């Protein structure tokens, strides 16, 4: 697999504060790498380093086989697009004007848009399904619409690499699935995507590979089932989680440790263990406090609970797994090759 973007042993510090330590990963054409980790683990910083907005203190970033420093700013912007998390959009501008800004790297400082720029912007709006918004002002859009506009602007750059910082934040489930379905389609067409996710289930369902960051270090990278183990997640997120399998596809589904409700409408009292008692061996009554992850993470204990939790999973996780779909369509080769990039 040709790697479009690769980070080799990258470290970065804000002043004295180390944010990234010795991180290596790579993304190739047609692969979707998810970046997960707790708040402050360095996800956004990693994305900013990958986008060339921050210069790493150590290590190498390579873009299209060249050192990033050698790739000019405009040249880079013609092949790599970034979707920021809370980017400012001037509210009085129309969607069309904002999407057309995606053509900036092709125009230089004084150029005017020509017909091909208009076509590219229009196509991008169609792909991101926001063409009907063209004449609306961006200040009047909902969160989901706004995000689609940002996706359209990124697509107007006609990138080969797309970096996304929480593309589904502030969205309801409908728009989350629609947005990420769109991104997955683009991955199928050959786009290389590196995306930060807060929602582990979305990452598990859509990403070929996920990278788990903790305190600036890469804890694990690989297929979601390899990375989202009870051991990894409890260690990194400092909270015990219930890990099961998606009822439809064989990807991991991550759930809160349990319900405060017994299921019969009674609230658990103060001091009572947070998990349903009796039915599950898993609930040993010491989960929240326990640093000792072993009690909850043994594979056989987890497995024993899968059947019982199925209904809850189907309510909380996306309806289907994108990755399974990719496999069925013969995407295995790409998927497999994406996995062997720098998995550890």
């Amino acid at each position, binding site marked *: 697999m040709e790697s479009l973007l690769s980070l080799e042993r990258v470290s970065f510090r804000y002043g004295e504060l180390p944010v990234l330590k010795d991180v290596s990963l790579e993304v190739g054409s047609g692969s979707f790498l998810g970046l997960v980790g707790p708040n402050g683990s360095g996800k956004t910083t990693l994305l*900013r380093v990958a*986008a*060339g*907005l921050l210069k790493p203190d150590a290590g190498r970033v390579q873009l299209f086989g060249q050192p990033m420093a050698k790739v000019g*700013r*405009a*040249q*880079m*912007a*013609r092949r*790599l*697009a*970034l979707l*920021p998390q809370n*980017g*400012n*959009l*001037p*509210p*009085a*501008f129309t969607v*069309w*004007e904002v999407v057309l*800004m*995606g053509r*900036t*790297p092709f*125009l230089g*400082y*004084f*150029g*005017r848009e020509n017909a091909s720029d*208009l076509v590219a*912007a*229009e196509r991008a709006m169609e792909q991101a*399904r*926001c*063409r*009907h*918004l*063209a*004449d*609306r*002002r961006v*200040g*009047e859009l909902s969160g989901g619409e706004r995000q*689609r506009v940002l996706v359209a602007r990124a697509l107007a*750059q006609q990138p080969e690499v797309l970096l996304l910082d929480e593309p589904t934040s502030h969205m309801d489930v*409908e728009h989350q699935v*629609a947005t990420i379905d769109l991104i997955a389609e683009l991955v199928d067409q050959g786009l290389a995507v590196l995306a930060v996710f807060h929602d582990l289930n979305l990452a598990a369902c859509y990403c070929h590979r996920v990278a788990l960051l903790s305190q600036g270090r890469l804890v694990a990278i690989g297929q979601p089932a390899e990375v989202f183990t009870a051991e990894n997640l409890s260690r990194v997120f400092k909270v015990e989680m219930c890990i099961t399998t998606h009822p439809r596809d064989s990807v991991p589904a991550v759930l809160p440790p349990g319900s405060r409700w017994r299921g019969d409408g009674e609230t658990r009292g103060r001091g009572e263990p947070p998990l349903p008692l009796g039915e599950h061996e898993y609930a040993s009554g010491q989960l929240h406090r326990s640093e000792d992850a072993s009690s909850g993470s043994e594979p056989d204990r987890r497995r024993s609970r899968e059947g019982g939790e199925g209904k809850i999973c189907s309510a909380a996780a996306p309806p289907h797994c994108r990755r399974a779909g990719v496999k069925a369509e013969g995407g295995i080769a790409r998927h497999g090759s994406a996995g062997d990039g720098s998995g550890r």
Partner: protein
Amino acid sequence: MRGVMEVVVARPRPAGRSARLRLGRYTVAVAALLLACMVGVMVGKAPVDPGTAVAILLSRLHLLQVVPWWPASLETILWEIRLPRVAMGALVGAALSVAGATYQGLFRNPLADPYLVGVAAGAGLGATLAMAAPLPASLYSLGIIQFAAFGSALLAMALVYSLARVGGSTPITTLVLAGVAVGALANAMTSFLMYAHGDKLAVIYSWMLGGFNVTTWRQAALVAPSVLIAVLVISLLGRVANVMQLDDDQARSLGVNVELVKLVLVVAATLATAASVSAAGLIGFVGLVVPHVVRILWGPDHRSLIPLSALVGAAFLVSADAGARLVPGPQDIPVGVVTAFCGAPFFLYLLRQQKRSVF
């Protein structure tokens, strides 16, 4: 999904329609400026009717061969007093409006005005120094006050910009705060100078109030290059200025050299402001409000916002100066009073008409 359900109605505007729209805007703005200039030439202690005014100007330019039916003194008044005054008003109005529009966009702050990066305070200090210092009279006649104001305004901007630089970049908020701080320092020094040189108080104060009372062609010619260059440069960078309205990260990831563009825009806007302050003192309100009026009327795109702001700002200040001459009294009232007195209600009216976000 909502996106699929909705009927696709909106298409990007066809080029023909938007080109016509653009032409219409410029026609309106140019007509407003010409009208304002006409009024500016006619109004004053010796009023002229429009026909005579046009005839005087055309014959002076050798475009019209007629036997003068007007007194020679009127020709002198028009050509040597009113016309330079109108030209200066137009230049200063354009400079302040363009600088205001640029800063508002660059700082993403609708309250930004041309004096934001310490230019006004710097110019004030420079001019006060020149007036307070015991300089030979010949220097004053050469316009040392204007040069001192212009130079110190640019110095203040350079100081603000270098103070605001943090590790290779210039964050907008730091720039604004440094501007406020340097401005306060310069103002304090100006106040001290005024206190220490009580005998010059009236001269200094009347300079600061500003206006176009004694404008010559020479002064207008000195101001013109800075203003025209700045307007041209900023207009050409209009599309990039739009991109700068996003945050720095987004602009950078779209391939824009953010620091370079920021520097060029700030320097150009400061150049225009410094030139206008040195010639006409501090005239408030124009740079703040004209860009907003243009945004309300014709949208926020800097490619049209900048040139239209220049035209509308010029028309507005020329009319305001004519208004200042119309008010009866021993002296012309300061033009800044007129700009605020007439501009503020109109602006509020537009603001109330507008139901949605302007900026």
